């Protein structure tokens, strides 16, 4: 096992070395990706400038939920985001090369497509999350401390699962284009606002059916000591790890089926 980890570490190190070789280019990339993540949270603040309360939440509470979501998404994007290049990899037939090597296919793809610049987003996300926690006056209890760490970690697993599942679709539908973004980036936008904002079938499907409500909204309620206006019990936020685990399980299963039935482009 130690040997395998060492090989992956080597692959990642090689990528980082290659990407940081052109320093100016790398720094511009790093700044741009960091700023791009800032725009999403900036949008939340602009909306709260127009309306003092959105879906029954004030700016401090709303911003805590948004930054918690942003933190989880940024780390998932850092670890798993580049898997969305799978479509091109299948099209070009380079997946075959990964298949004949004595390492896991997924691990190889993640290591060889690793984008070092996305670390900027993670750092930014964690910093803003810290500020939001302070601004929302979260009471410093042991349970809160656990939730503060647990929620973004579950977000990481959950969004990674969506990135993986979205990319796996290209095993069957090579022209899926932006289809998966509806759930990955769409999911991020969904999670950034209190679930009370949405209604009807859309809330039921996206929030509860697909599980996005459990990633930032319910953990956020736990941190804010608020009852759920939609009537679920107070401990719902603690179910987040279970939701993340189910998502990860389904994504892993899909990936297994996809890789098994993969036929090369034949060249």
């Amino acid at each position, binding site marked *: 096992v130690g040997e395998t980890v060492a090989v992956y570490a080597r692959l990642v190190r090689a990528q980082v070395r290659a990407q940081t070789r052109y320093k100016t*280019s790398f720094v*511009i*990339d790093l700044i*741009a*990706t960091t*700023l*791009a993540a800032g*725009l999403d949270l*900036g*949008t939340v603040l*602009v*909306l709260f*400038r*127009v*309306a*003092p*309360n*959105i*879906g029954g939440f004030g700016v401090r509470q709303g911003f805590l939920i948004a930054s918690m979501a942003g933190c989880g998404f940024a780390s998932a994007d850092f670890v798993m985001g580049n898997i969305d290049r799978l479509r091109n990899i299948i099209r070009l037939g380079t997946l075959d090369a990964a298949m004949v090597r004595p390492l896991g296919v997924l691990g190889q793809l993640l290591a060889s497509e690793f984008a070092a610049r996305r670390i900027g987003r993670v750092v930014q996300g964690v910093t803003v999350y810290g500020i939001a926690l302070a601004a929302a006056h979260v009471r410093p209890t042991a349970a809160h401390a656990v939730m503060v760490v647990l929620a973004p970690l579950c977000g990481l697993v959950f969004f990674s699962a969506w990135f993986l599942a979205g990319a796996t679709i290209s095993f069957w*539908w090579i*022209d*899926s*284009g*932006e*289809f998966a*973004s*509806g*759930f990955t980036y*769409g999911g991020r*936008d*969904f999670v950034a*606002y209190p679930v*009370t*904002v*949405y*209604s009807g079938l*859309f*809330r039921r499907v996206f929030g509860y059916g697909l599980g996005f409500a459990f990633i930032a909204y319910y953990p956020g309620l736990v941190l804010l000591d608020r009852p759920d206006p939609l009537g679920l019990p107070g401990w719902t936020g603690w179910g987040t790890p279970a939701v993340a685990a189910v998502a990860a399980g389904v994504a892993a299963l899909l990936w297994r089926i996809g890789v098994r039935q993969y036929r090369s482009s034949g060249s």
Partner: protein
Amino acid sequence: VANLTASVGRSAASWPPVRYRTFVALVSAGFRRFSTYRQAALAGAFTNTVFGFLRCFVILAVAHGSGNRAAGYDSAQLVTYIWVSQGLIATVGVWGDSALSERIRTGDVVADLLRPVSPVVSYLATDLGRAGFAVLTRFVAPVLVGAFAFDLYVPRHLLTYPLFAVAVLLATVVSFACRYVVNATAYWLLDARGPLLAWMLVSNVLSGLYFPLAFLPGWLELALWWATPFPYLLQAPVDVLVERHSLAGSVGLVAGGVAWSGLCLAGAWYVQKRGERRMVIQGG
């Protein structure tokens, strides 16, 4: 090289820069080229629709939180703003592509320069053809879904419809010219990734895709409208459609679109001329 320089010097003085029939043929070729990607268009329309629902609920909550009017828009106008802007992303081509900069980097652009039509004109024609196909798929699909699920704003003046169509056409031209300039930086930088990223960053938020520009502080909004082309990518056509201003105001927005598309095209033309002088053909 002598041949190349000679032919690059071609159409500089001639006006018009392209014959009408050539232009139409190029537009229809662009339409046909992009109409082969039907599945990708379907996938894209689906994603626009998901984002339409998402942003629509959020903006309605914002409207609700500020007394059912936000920055002068009522709920129906806001809902229309969301669905139409989702439909316009791909039509106007706000996000753009890196095709030209790639061709400059690899040296393939030399094939474009050898043709009797300036690349600014031929790329514009192709882009208009692309937009034409996008209207039929990426614009119509989300707007129809939005119309089924929510109450959209129905324009009071009949004239608003043709004005909106013109505003969308102008937005496509402004967007094209801006993206052309961004891509053409590759003549100097070889790798236009930095400028492309910067374009992605500012065009999204400053064109009014994330929220109506009227949500911003007044001085900032004013500066954007008067000093940058960004509002003419999305906000202007949408404001025309939801009749944010009087009919005269809508005509004014279209006039602004004419001015900016002229200015941006002239900019693209100038950058192309300078770039040709600067260019080193890569490869053998």
